[in-house]
């Protein structure tokens, strides 16, 4: 069993290494007709840029994106500079250099990777999946009897912020930086999944398709790990299945298929304000121009946020979204599960959390207000502030850096719910409902708590669960995503997630059940 595990690890690492070096490999050769087509599609009017590419790129072979990318970005910068100097604003190209490099790279890919998509898929994704499963599956036997399996979590380098954790951190952060800021280096990855993309939407894959596909693969493999680790816990099994289903079907398959059917790309479960660009002008225009389905999505999006989300939170707590449906939550609960213990439980962190998450919610609401104002009045500025630049700031700071780079990249260091806890505006909104008007609570079982601290340690949201449990007090915190792990790791059966009557949901107690009745009443009544 151990041998299978180790072999699996080696195979996984080979797959991962191949995946990591693929971005800098490959050959790119752009021919004239392809470039002409790009000029036409992108409506490029810059003669300077066209000439420069014709001279330096077309008909030449480039070895790897590292040599192609600078040629294109510098040509584009030079052309734009000249046009701006000459005030030829109509000729300025507004596509970024990196996006242009990605576009040209995608159309001009040749050689090993672009021509052996299936093989390369196997050497990256294939080996990764096989290796990871070989590493995970033997745990069915190795973990022994059913029960909580946290032995050695704080002894292992990977789960105790050791060197492996830091390597994972570097890998994840780099991956997100490439995805958001250097998409041309993701071009070779897109070739690997082209066949899958074409079979779904009919289009070749872009780098966001790579991300979406990888997201599903990672979640599926890590869900297998969850199933094995928590095989005694039906709540965890059902919940894991649910997040996996919503990721694969709602976030991945349905939007791609909608594109094939000439409909707008839309994830029906992604609620505003997490889906922060739902009301952006381009999206509203696209929806309004898409006929009946566009209108349906528009109404659905509004109803989802204003009615469905709060009503469901009333009945089931915010868990129905955050740890049963949401994609961010889904990744956190699968890939992120080994890191859940790293969330800080200090009072200081809680203060930071409340300022940050509500700040982001405010930011999202103000930005959307400006967006809608601009949309209806058709003015680009409000009080001298450009709506566009507010949107860009949000997209960069919150959408890319907070949610992506920090939210997932920092898993091995700060735990798996950094984004959900400190940043997600939807979580903040759901949190208000959960805290003030909901049937959900984590019930503390009378006086049974022994203050051991397993619940607090393994709370991914950094809630000091024990602080409540040892006082016999139910947990009704806005940040609780209802993952159910506190209840699972409790050695004394103290915690239960449940939906019940609102009355008695909050039960402050000082003297716990089991002590003399007089004393309990005396102290608890005041």
């Amino acid at each position, binding site marked *: 069993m151990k041998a299978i595990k180790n072999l699996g690890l080696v195979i996984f690492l080979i797959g991962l290494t191949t995946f990591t070096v693929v971005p800098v490999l490959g050959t790119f050769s752009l021919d004239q007709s392809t470039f002409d087509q790009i000029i036409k599609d992108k409506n490029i009017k810059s003669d300077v840029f066209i000439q420069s590419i014709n001279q330096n790129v077309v008909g030449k072979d480039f070895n790897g994106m590292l040599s192609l990318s600078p040629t294109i970005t510098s040509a584009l910068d030079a052309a734009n500079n000249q046009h701006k100097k000459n005030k030829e604003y109509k000729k300025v190209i507004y596509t970024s250099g990196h996006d242009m490099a990605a576009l040209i790279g995608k159309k001009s890919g040749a050689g090993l990777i672009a021509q052996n998509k299936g093989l390369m898929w196997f050497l990256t994704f294939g080996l990764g999946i096989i290796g990871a499963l070989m590493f995970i599956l033997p745990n069915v036997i190795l973990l022994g009897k059913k029960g909580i399996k946290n*032995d050695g979590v*704080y002894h292992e380098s990977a789960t105790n912020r050791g060197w492996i954790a830091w390597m994972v951190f570097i890998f994840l952060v780099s991956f997100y930086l490439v995805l958001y800021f250097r998409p041309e280096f993701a071009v070779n990855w897109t070739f690997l999944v082209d066949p899958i993309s074409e079979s779904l939407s009919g289009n070749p894959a872009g780098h966001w398709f790579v991300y979406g596909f990888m997201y599903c693969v990672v979640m599926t493999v890590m869900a297998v790990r969850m199933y094995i680790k928590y095989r005694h816990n039906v709540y965890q099994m059902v919940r894991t299945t649910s997040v996996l289903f919503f990721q694969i079907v709602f976030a991945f398959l349905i939007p791609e298929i909608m594109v094939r059917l000439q409909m707008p790309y839309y994830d029906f479960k992604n609620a505003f304000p997490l889906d922060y660009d739902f009301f952006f002008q381009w999206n509203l225009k696209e929806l309004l121009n898409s006929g009946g389905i566009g209108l349906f999505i528009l109404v659905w999006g509004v109803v989802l946020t204003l009615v469905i989300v709060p009503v469901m939170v009333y009945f089931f707590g915010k868990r129905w979204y955050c740890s049963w449906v949401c994609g961010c939550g889904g990744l956190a609960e699968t890939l992120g599960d080994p890191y859940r213990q790293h969330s800080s439980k200090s009072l200081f962190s809680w203060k930071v959390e409340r300022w940050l998450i509500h700040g982001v919610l405010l930011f999202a609401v103000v930005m959307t207000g400006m967006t809608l104002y601009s949309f209806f009045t058709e003015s680009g500025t409000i009080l001298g502030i450009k709506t566009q630049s507010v949107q860009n700031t949000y997209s960069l700071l919150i959408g890319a850096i907070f949610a992506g780079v920090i939210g997932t990249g920092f898993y091995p260091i700060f735990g798996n719910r950094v984004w959900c806890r400190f940043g997600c505006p939807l979580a903040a909104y759901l949190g208000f409902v959960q805290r003030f008007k909901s049937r959900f609570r984590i019930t503390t079982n009378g006086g049974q708590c022994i203050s051991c601290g397993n619940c607090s340690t393994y709370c991914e949201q950094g809630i000091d669960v024990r602080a409540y449990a040892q006082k016999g007090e139910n947990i009704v915190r806005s940040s609780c995503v209802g993952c159910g792990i506190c209840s699972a790791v409790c050695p004394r059966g103290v915690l239960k997630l449940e939906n019940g009557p609102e009355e008695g949901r909050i039960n402050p107690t000082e003297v716990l059940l089991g002590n003399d009745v007089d004393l309990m009443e005396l102290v608890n009544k005041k």
Partner: protein
Amino acid sequence: MEHIVIIGNGISGVTAARHIRKLSDKKITIVSAETDYFFSRTALMYVYMGHMKFEHTQPYENWFWKKNRIELVKGFVTTVDHDKKTLVLAEGKELAYDKLIIATGSKPNKFGWPGQDLKGVQGLYSKQDLDLIEANAPNKEVCNRAVIIGGGLIGIELAEMLRSRKIPVTFLVRENSFWNGVLPNGESQMINEHIKEHHIDLKLETNLVEIIADENGRAKAITTDKGETIECNVVGLTAGVTPNIDFLKDSGIELGRGVKVNRLLETNIKDIYAIGDCAEQHEGIGNRRPIEAVWYTGRMMGETLAQTICGKPREYNPGHWFNSAKFLDIEYQTYGWVFSERIKKEQEKHFHWRHATEKICITAAFDKDSKKFLGINTFGIRMRHEIFDRWLTEERDIDHVMQYLKDANFDPEFYAHYEEDIISKYNSVMHTSLSVKKKSWKRIFSKA
């Protein structure tokens, strides 16, 4: 300002301090030689097993004590001088008090076994014991085998700890079945099986004779009363605990096995109180023992004494008995009294149900004539404390408990339910025809 000094920063002392602070402005000082800050003793095992770091066992952040004006003194109290109302610490420092609370807890029992003080022989009680086991048994290469003496709750925890590092464990238990002085047979049998499933070499009805030293004064083997010699590097002594009160021998405070206290938790000396593991009631309360070395009772005594100290004299008056533990993977809860066959009275009858394949069972105790429900043990099923507490107060009969068992279930959502199975067995052995009542939130939350 009145100065309250508490010796011991365990659950009892700290609970007393917290509640005194809530009720008053008195000066509070806690003296401990064990650690700087309060930690949960019951969680030490999880530190060795790698589930948590030591800091995670501390329920309050370090700033808590200063903020709440609870002064912490690290030191070992050698003498209590009640005439001068002064404590003397090991390094000679003196500490004056107006009221003194003794909450010094327990220490592991040693029954005079030859070799019991050798290197490599230890209990598992204190932070120091945790450091020691980390040094004595860091892995299976350094510790080829450990022998654990004494089949109680700490013994099985120590076994689980060592097994988490794949260290072979031999477990010597005096009784003919694990913890059967407390657990009824069916349950004790099930735990025996579970211990073996975890590859622990369980030796029942076996006693330690001698621990043998190597040339460096380290334990290298033990011999048993069955004539067996077992080589080992670590010997765990887990045959119960005794109040940790040696320092009080000549203090004038009345001592038995523990510090003798009345129901107000007062000792024979004015302004000196004792709570928690080290306190001994003149007479056990109800079915309770005079010394209760249990987390929960320590906490309750702290809650109660704080009232007395703050001018509202309260007797220690614990409600219905409850307790919990975890045997390797199996959670155990108990509410009310279920006695083992070895000590139960003639009137007490048991209904036992065990799952056909899983390690899940319950035993409910009731009066054989009146059918009054006396208590329940559950293994692998969580129960709602409030419901059982209420049923015990209302003196429900066993039929009622069986019918409304769903109200009491506290397992996580989606878990399999066994009430139907339980009641059908109950019906067949008791010749009744009861049926399970649906769970009712209204009943659960009604404050009777």
